[in-house]
């Protein structure tokens, strides 16, 4: 049995990339750092209670009282535990990684939906990204981007992107074939069909994908703490390394609060979109013009 070593070539490749693509990585670093800082600034510049009020208002708008009350109490608790800044740091990384992941995953999902060949290429890549232990690509991420929020954001992006692509592809592929055919039959251009028929009809699935991306990104918060991204991850890591159960638990609770808040908020958005489409009709009465149409009354009775 010959010994096969694929670790060395990969390590060499990473070295080679680090040396030769430094400007690219620097650029990515700069962009991600910029976005993360902007979001972090928006979240931390106002006093915590202002931000909490905004979150509560969002929660109320999305789901009414119960969720608003939860949001208010939960974030007051985060603040009271002294974890406000850490929580906002984590939230900033999660939001930036999610937005970028969605920005990448929707076009890739559309591409995979339109071509079986693309789909067969994309699928194993996604499997690889999702199941390869996170620490394994956290190390090259540190090589490329140093330590801090950026490698954490990139690793989070890579880990979280899969459901966005998969659910976009699934959503578009499951749009009723006859409906797409109808758009063709009336002379629509491919991009018109995509924009006006396929994407809107795939939206519930795509929104479910966005929700999943967000949840996976949150699950990376603690691991991000290991590469010096700060935030709640650092808090939890501190708890672990000091065997301080209390600190670890507080950090963990704050992560859970963020997760519940983001999950309920985004799933409510998806549902709201659907509800708006299905608003009740004004209640028109069908008028049958004599001589132009057979009576639709029988149909109406079935409404």
């Amino acid at each position: 049995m010959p010994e096969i070593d694929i670790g060395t070539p990969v390590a060499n490749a990473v070295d080679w990339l680090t040396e030769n693509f430094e400007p690219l990585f620097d650029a990515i670093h700069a962009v991600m750092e910029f976005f993360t800082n902007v979001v972090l600034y928006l979240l931390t510049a106002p006093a915590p209670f202002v931000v909490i009020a905004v979150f509560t208002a969002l929660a109320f708008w999305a789901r009414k009282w119960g969720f608003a009350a939860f949001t208010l109490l939960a974030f007051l608790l985060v603040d009271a535990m002294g974890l406000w800044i850490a929580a906002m740091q984590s939230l900033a990384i999660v939001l930036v990684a999610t937005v970028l992941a969605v920005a990448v995953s929707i076009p890739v999902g559309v591409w995979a939906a339109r071509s079986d060949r693309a789909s067969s290429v994309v699928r194993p890549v996604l499997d690889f990204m999702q199941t390869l232990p996170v620490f394994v690509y956290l190390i090259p991420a540190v090589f490329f981007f140093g330590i801090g929020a950026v490698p954490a954001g990139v690793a989070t992006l890579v880990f979280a992107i899969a459901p966005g692509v998969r659910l976009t592809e699934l959503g578009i592929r499951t749009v009723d074939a006859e409906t797409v055919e109808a758009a063709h039959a009336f002379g629509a251009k491919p991009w018109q069909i995509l924009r006006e028929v396929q994407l809107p009809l795939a939206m519930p699935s795509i929104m479910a994908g966005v929700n999943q991306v967000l949840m996976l990104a949150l699950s990376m918060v603690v691991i991000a703490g290991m590469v010096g991204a700060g935030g709640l991850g650092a808090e939890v890591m501190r708890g672990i390394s000091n065997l301080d159960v209390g600190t670890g638990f507080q950090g963990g609770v704050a992560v859970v609060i963020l997760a519940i808040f983001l999950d309920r908020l985004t799933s409510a958005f998806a549902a709201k979109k659907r509800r708006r489409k299905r608003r009740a009709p004004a209640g028109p009465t069908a008028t049958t013009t004599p001589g132009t149409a057979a009576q639709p009354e029988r149909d109406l009775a079935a409404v």
Partner: protein
Amino acid sequence: MTTSLELPADPVAAGETGVAAPVAIEVSHLTKVFGAPARRGLGRGRSDTGGGKPPAVADVSFTVAKGEFFVIMGLSGSGKSTLLRMLNKLVEPTSGTLTIDGRDVSRLRDGELRELRNKKINMVFQHFALFPHRTVRDNAAYALRLRGVNQNEAAQRADEALKTVGLEGWGDSLPGELSGGMRQRVGLARALASGADILLMDEPFSALDPLIRRDMQDLLLQLQRDHQRTVVFVTHDLNEAMRLGDRIMVMRNGKVVQLGTGAEILSMPADDYVADFVSDVDRSRVLTAGTIMRQPLVTARLDERPEQVLDRIGAAEGLGAYVLDEDGRILGVLSNDRLADAVHQRSTSLADHLTDQYASVPDSAPLVDLCSLVGRHSVPLAVTDDAGRLVGVVPRAALLAAIANTEEAPRA
């Protein structure tokens, strides 16, 4: 169905309609093999797997005249929907040519093909295929919006189309709020609003329940009377085909089995398959007086003598005779009793003894309309042409035989 004698010229019966009319669609040797390398196009390309499969459509040729209602009929798997989709190139033909209004469709570039689909040839789908996220009005205006008609005008024309199909006032609803029959009215309005003069209909009423299906057929017939479009209509329901179609093309395993008018297919099925198919059709609605009429046994002229006529009737074992003028128009009827009286009175003129104890129908009247008329009088039912000339008679026995489908019945 009325039993009125003054039926309008029924398109179902007028089998020869459009033979002289200009051609709208010409299909020649069209073949589709799924999985075979096809010419590239805008088709959505159904599952392209597996080779060496039998063709879905094999070497089909036919022409559809402008304004004709052409029905493609067959069971599932007969290739009828594939054939229909080749007419607007949703399915790319493997070989053969297709000409629409004299233009070879396979030579069109993508943009031209889209324009053809947008303005010339529209489609109505089996499961309606409406856009569920758009209002009924936006659905109806779809083709117009695609071609860049401004919003107000498109909405106005969409509303007109909705009114035509009996959905006035429903423009702001969403398709999901409508019943099946109403949704297909929207599907129809969407095709009508574009102003296209060729309509492809893929089993449009088969997802509807029977009562509503009948309403929709009526609506379609009415639309055709108001504005005659060229319609290619796919169905698996022979009664529907007979009711709507000027001509019917029966398909099986991708091949054309028979092409003809409803009456032709019913009275002269090309093979056992078609015969089997037509066995449960309501023959009384499809066959017409013209297809089952016979030569009258005895006719008389006004200048004949009563004894001569009575002798002829007696020889033919009839009960009476039609009296015709020079041109063959019916003047009246002589029954045996009246003739016997005339002979008894030594009358020499037939004119004094004529009665109007008869009924007549045009040769296009369906048999169902004959049932209540036949057998009432001493003479068999008269069949007349447009000028009122006697072209044949329908005795009660012939009518019963035709409806019962005995061998000797149809003598078209």
